[in-house]
């Protein structure tokens, strides 16, 4: 399913590349930032990365349509980064009481074994 989608996207993007190469017109601001000689290769890699990242999000419990939407608003660099460290990156969450309970438990244990004797 994913493979098929990636293939379709790749074909579409390659068609897009060849059409762009053939035509004249305005060059985008993103290419004014830096001149990449490997524009086409980068574009194809970007499509692959996006499929990868989308799959990684799905593996984390996100439904496929939402995963694609979430990847769609990321920059190329973010896509690459997320695919590589989705499991290790910090995920901001709530302040839990687990840590407090642990401290209390340790303190109680120290008091019991050291001072009560």
């Amino acid at each position, binding site marked *: 399913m994913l493979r098929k989608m990636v293939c379709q996207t790749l074909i579409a993007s390659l068609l897009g590349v060849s059409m762009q190469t053939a035509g004249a*017109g305005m*060059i985008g601001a*993103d290419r004014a930032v830096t001149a*990449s000689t490997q524009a086409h290769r980068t574009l194809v890699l970007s499509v692959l990365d996006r499929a990868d990242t989308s799959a990684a*999000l799905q593996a984390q419990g996100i439904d496929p349509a939402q995963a694609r939407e979430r990847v769609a608003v*990321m920059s190329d660099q*973010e896509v690459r980064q997320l695919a590589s460290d989705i499991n290790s990156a910090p*995920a901001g*969450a709530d302040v839990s009481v687990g840590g407090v309970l642990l401290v209390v438990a340790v303190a109680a244990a120290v008091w019991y074994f050291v001072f009560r004797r």
Partner: protein
Amino acid sequence: MNARPFGPTWRRGWVVRALFALLLAQLAGCAQLVPQTIGLRTDWPAGVPERTEISELPFFPQTDYQCGPAALATVLAHSGVAITPEPLVSQVWLPSRRGSLQIEMLAAPRRYGRVSYVLAPRFADLLREVAAGHPVLVLQDVGLIAPQWHYAVVNGFDYASGSIYLRSDIRPRVVMPFTAFERSWMQGGYWAMVAQRPDRIPVSASESGWIEAVLALERAHADGGVGMQAAWTAALQRWPNSLPAAVGLANQHYARRELTVAAEVLREAHRRHPKSAVVINNLAQTLSDLGHHAVALQVLQNAGGEAAQVFSVELAATRAQIELRSRQEISPGAPAVTKTEASQVQPVQPRRGARKAPRRAAPSARERPASP
């Protein structure tokens, strides 16, 4: 300090010296614990008031583990987006991690036409943004033993009492000492972001960083319509020498068929960056669309060097097209073809994905405030 004689015997002097050394070591330890707070004591950033608070900032109490959506809704609502945390849950919440990732926190504001910008990891920059009325979303480690990541929004500070004000979890106004805040903030690498309207550039923004951030918004909205013209206008105003800003602004005008304005912007860009092949190509294209084929071909003559090699395909295609147009206009035999050709020639969509990795502003050690 220790030059003053403390006692008659060398023994006492030795004790004092040892105590003094210990004190120095303690101070050094403190500086390592909260280096930036120590720096702020002696080196308060210029132009930043000693007290400020964005009190009109909305507050959304978080539900279970969902500090990400709550914090994001806070900054988005302040930037003028009508939003609550609920729709953001499906955009940034990761069920398996029971939290939100930084990258997704950056990506989500783009759906609402806002530019996400990661601040340089400096306390001074955070204070400058808050003082400028931009609430700052920060990543904190609030765990006592194991790391416990948490998002909150800084909306004020007070130098005299050394406090930072935050909207955090279910508390609308948390007051944290600078030191405690820095301890929690440094664990995440001093990560902080703002979500801005495209025409409101953060006061601490670097040119390359902001341009990358705006391009990321543009990429997310390939169909346009998110105030990109205002974004590039503001960027060009702040950094008149910015090549991407000029090209971006001209492309916005071009897309609206405001060719004369586009040509003006590109002419100025060409004056500032005579070697830029992108400017040469786009200026020639625009001039040709205006009917000035000869001038356009003259502009193309300026293309040369390494920059032109990279864009050789585009430049050649533009040249061929302009030459074709001018031949057809000169030859009286084919006026109909000219018309067809003119209608066929549509500007090619700006190509995406050809960007290199953004140059992240990694502050060197000397940029940080020095500790005493």
